């Protein structure tokens, strides 16, 4: 994912009251290659996989895109 997008961690600026869907759209606006990940990627907020994509985010939240896992 880092290789596909060409970047790792960064700050994402979204409007007050934004949801996880808004974050995804902001990421997409930054890099359209993210479309390739849409079907297999989960989104986590502050270390928990988000159950609802309309969860609101707050300043300082950690938003992580999680590709399919491969532990073990």
């Amino acid at each position, binding site marked *: 994912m880092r290789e596909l997008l060409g970047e790792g961690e960064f700050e994402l600026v979204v409007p007050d009251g934004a949801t996880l869907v808004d974050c995804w759209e902001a990421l997409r606006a930054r890099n359209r290659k993210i479309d390739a990940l849409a079907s297999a990627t989960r989104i*986590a907020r502050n270390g928990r996989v988000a159950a609802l994509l309309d969860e609101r985010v707050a300043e300082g939240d950690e938003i992580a895109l999680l*590709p399919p896992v491969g532990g073990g």
Partner: protein
Amino acid sequence: MSLFAIVRDAIDPRTLEAAVWSEACGAVTMFLGVVRERASDGRPVTGLVYEAHEAMALTEFAEIAHEIGQKYPGVRVGIVHRIGELRVGEIAVAVCAASPHRPAAFDACRYAIDEVKARASIWKNERYADGTGEWVSN
């Protein structure tokens, strides 16, 4: 040793076993995931590189252990995953279950590794002889 850990150095299964075992337990089962010389498609592998979202992975390990405590009362499990660069023959993951009796020890160990592979926030990059690598999922 903690029952749940993400480590950067060699895993010592004996230390994990000592942390999991208690005097009521006659049965200890262990699963070791070891780097093997070939990928699933048969290509030779020189090693693996693992990355983790550590905080999430540790929470997931504890959740899996909690589920096991519910399903198999009296069974304790420990889960340790190594990250970073591993060579063929090195232990990537160790799961240990201790129980008064052996059927539950086997079932719990198997459940734990199945769940770790299915949902722990850990990613694996296979390294090939030609110097390239590829992220692979389970």
